[in-house]
């Protein structure tokens, strides 16, 4: 009795709880990102070498002014963490916008046109999958110098594959439905059909992909920054915070635990929210 | 006929407490007898067969006053003990030969594992037995077929393989759940003839599930008619066809064209309405909404009555009633 029934509609039980947890985490992170300037208790860039590596609140000898302690240059860790949420969210969202534009355009055109054009789109997807993302992103940033814009463009140009795959397959399903034929018979232009008839009908699938991509982009940014070729210092990216604190991790493990947990929880929250959305829309995005 | 091989009394199967698929069915199969269970789709005949074999899906609840194979109570038997009986002394074949064989293994491998499991046979002995049985079910070049995969065989061939596989351990009871429904018409007749021959030659007790009354007339010793999870009439084949008692049975028989008996231009009968979905706690006759003889007492408790030698029915009507089986 295990027929694969795709259930859409309101979520129940623990699925609903998980989705809410995800929504709260994401909401909190977005709030931090938007209002980081007002939320930070200290200037996240202000160094104070007399207050280096102060311990966080749960450890002995902590300083009440610095809840999460300070880093190796005496900068307030909580402030840098909040500022880091802004970097993560900013990069996650902008990278996803860039890759969504590329991937959706390719997928919809390939899925709608079929034939030779579709073959080309498929070939582009295959080629893209064979390129090692982290390595190429590192190489581009390494060769051209690190800046936020370059990082976003590079990751955006590399992460469109899942958008293209999902947009292509869903467009193929929608293309053959009656209302598309009706629009065609009514003399609508091709662009009109793609933009007004097809896109709204595959949007729910794409939203789910977008959540997955934001999470992926955030993880990749952190990894690149950790390797020293992502966000340029002194910007407080969580990955960069981990990299800068690495030397001290054996003596003060909390210096890498705090930004790592933040990163982990945010990505988990986005994934929980994405899973919830997928169940709610009744869509499947697995390849 | 010797002692009963399979005894089922007042069998009930519910799915998740919402659907009562079988509501007190009773079936007895004697040794060496072909017992046909007939009824429309959804009447619970397949579920009855699966319940007998303890193959119900998870979430199904089974209960019975008696459920015995060769005197062995099956009701509280554990899965391990049951698996020692299944495929060994009681075997089953299914409706869908296309999907009932494992696509990843050869015919030979799937056939021999039964004998190796239950009788501890060696690979060579099991292969010999499999080849012999393939020949027996009318497959030419058994040696070749043993090395083939299911997808290389036609539907008819696969069903023959299923039958041969079920016979590997010389079972006493064979449960066949609509074994010909998914096959081409010409193949259907061949498979049916094969089953009838094997049943006679091997002295099998055969519980044959079907919705085809033509099949019943040709092969059955005894027939039970199921409707909405109940056996509404049960009789020796000849008697049932000659003197059906239950309105539903009569309606069913009216739907079958019999050359020479039905006038050339007369319309075939049909039973109006559909089989109702029965929730637990339903009382009275389930057929009453479609029956031409309905009255107030049909909503009450309906007694099971013996109306002749080995002939029972579940209806308030007197055995000698006349009139149409269902509303015209």
């Amino acid at each position, binding site marked *: 009795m295990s027929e694969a029934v795709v259930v859409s509609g309101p979520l129940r039980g623990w699925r609903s709880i998980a989705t809410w947890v995800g929504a709260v985490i994401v909401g909190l992170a977005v709030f931090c990102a938007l209002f980081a300037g007002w939320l930070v208790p200290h200037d996240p860039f202000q160094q104070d070498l007399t207050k280096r590596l102060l311990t966080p609140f749960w450890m002995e000898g902590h300083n009440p002014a610095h809840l999460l302690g300070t880093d190796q240059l005496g900068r307030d860790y909580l402030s840098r963490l909040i500022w880091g949420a802004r970097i993560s969210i900013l990069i996650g969202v902008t990278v996803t916008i860039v890759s969504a534009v590329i991937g959706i355009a390719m997928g919809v055109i390939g899925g709608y046109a079929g034939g030779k054009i579709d073959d080309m789109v498929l070939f582009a997807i295959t080629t893209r999958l064979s390129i090692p993302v982290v*390595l190429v992103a590192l190489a581009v940033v390494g*060769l051209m110098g690190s800046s936020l814009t370059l990082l976003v463009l590079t990751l955006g140009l590399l992460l469109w594959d899942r958008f293209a795959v999902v947009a292509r397959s869903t467009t193929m399903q929608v293309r053959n439905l009656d209302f598309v034929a009706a629009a065609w018979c009514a003399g609508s232009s091709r662009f009109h059909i793609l933009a007004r008839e097809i896109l709204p009908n595959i949007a729910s699938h794409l939203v789910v992909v977008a959540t997955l991509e934001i999470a992926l982009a955030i993880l990749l940014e952190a990894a690149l920054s950790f390797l020293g070729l992502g966000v340029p210092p002194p910007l407080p990216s969580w990955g960069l915070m981990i990299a800068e604190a690495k030397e001290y*991790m*054996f003596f003060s493990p909390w210096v890498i635990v705090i930004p790592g947990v933040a990163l982990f929880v945010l990505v988990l929250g986005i994934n929980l929210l994405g899973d919830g959305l997928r169940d709610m829309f009744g869509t499947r995005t697995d390849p | 006929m010797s002692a009963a091989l399979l005894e089922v009394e007042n069998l009930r199967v519910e799915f998740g407490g919402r659907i009562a698929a079988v509501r007190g069915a009773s079936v007895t199969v004697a040794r060496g007898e072909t017992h046909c269970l007939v009824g429309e789709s959804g009447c619970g005949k397949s579920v009855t067969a699966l319940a007998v*074999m303890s193959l119900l899906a998870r979430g199904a609840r089974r209960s019975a006053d008696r459920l015995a194979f060769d005197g062995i109570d099956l009701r509280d038997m554990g899965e391990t003990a049951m*698996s020692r009986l299944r495929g060994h002394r009681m*075997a089953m074949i299914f409706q869908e030969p296309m999907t009932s064989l494992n696509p*990843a293994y050869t015919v030979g491998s799937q056939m021999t594992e039964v004998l190796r*499991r239950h009788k501890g046979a060696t690979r060579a002995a099991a292969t010999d037995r499999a080849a012999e049985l393939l020949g027996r079910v009318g497959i030419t070049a058994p040696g070749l077929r043993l090395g083939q*995969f299911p997808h290389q065989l036609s539907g008819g061939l696969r069903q023959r393989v299923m039958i041969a596989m079920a016979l590997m351990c010389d079972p006493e009871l064979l449960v066949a759940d609509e074994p010909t429904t998914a096959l081409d018409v010409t193949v259907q007749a061949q498979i049916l003839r094969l089953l009838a021959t094997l049943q006679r030659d091997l002295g099998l007790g055969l519980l044959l599930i079907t919705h085809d009354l033509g099949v019943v007339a040709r092969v059955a010793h005894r027939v039970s008619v199921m409707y909405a999870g109940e056996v509404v009439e049960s009789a020796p084949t000849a008697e049932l066809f000659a003197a059906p008692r239950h309105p539903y049975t009569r309606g069913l028989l009216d739907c079958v064209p019999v050359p020479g008996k039905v006038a050339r231009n007369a319309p075939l009968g049909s039973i109006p309405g559909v089989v109702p979905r029965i929730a637990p706690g339903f009382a009275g006759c389930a057929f009453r909404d479609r029956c031409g003889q309905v009255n107030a007492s049909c909503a009450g408790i309906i007694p099971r009555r013996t109306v002749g030698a080995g002939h029972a029915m579940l209806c308030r009507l007197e055995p000698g009633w006349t009139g149409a089986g269902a509303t015209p």
Partner: protein
Amino acid sequence: MLRFLLRRLIVAVLVAATVLTLAFVLTRLSGDLAISIAGPNATQQDVDAVRKAYGLDRPVVIQFFDWVGRALLGDFGESYFFKARVAALIGERMPVTVSLGLTGLVIALAISLPMGVLAAVRENTWADRAVQAVALLGQAMPSFWLGLILMITLGLHLGWLPISGTGSWEHYVMPGIVLAFSAVPALTRLTRAGMIQALGSDYIRTARAKGLSRASILLKHALRNAAIPVVAIAAVQLGFMLGGSIVIESVFALHGVGFLAWESIGKNDFPVVQAVVLVLAVIYVALTMFADILNAVLDPRLRGA
């Protein structure tokens, strides 16, 4: 089947050719290579000398075909920094990366297959939910951070495993675990879905009707069919792992191809970078082809079709 393979091969060659071109373009993005190679303190004469020595004074098109022609013969030129043949450098480092990838894959399968089977057999119970939760956690885990945490816990506090380096097989365990984490969610979900589908199939009902033991039903009949897509995806995952090993190799200072690429990026050593990109891409393409073949071998329905 043969025609299918031939078509896959043609696509693979085209993909490799595209990546070859992209790898070349990639290194020209930064502007004048000669200036970067010569270093910040070089005079105009130094730069001119470098330009001539490395053939950078020729037209770009000539440079491109020169690099393509040599790359096809396995000659990726000479490393600016290591002063050695790039092919030799990569060949020297490749065993480390491949060992790491295989270790990761074995660990990933050893975790995912049992978890996926357990979740499918106990569908919709707490065990199923626990397995799905683990997959979700694995998906959200930043691999480099997990690596550091393992170094602190398993390496420093428990002292079970060496913290970094390439000395013995034990050096591969921790990086292998971290690398496996990236593949576990996908492999577990695929195993679970495949097993649920298999367990609901008619042939499993037949296997039960034959009175086979529970182990035989689960492992021989259900898992065999559920494993076909898993094995194929595992080969593709290995490709992703090799591509992603750059992060883990630099965390654990494992001197593999990824580490080589990372060092080379830092030192503007373009020939090495473009060669590593190309080699990893070709390996990935080869692995996906291998996955298709494996699929055909494991699934009798595709064999000889």
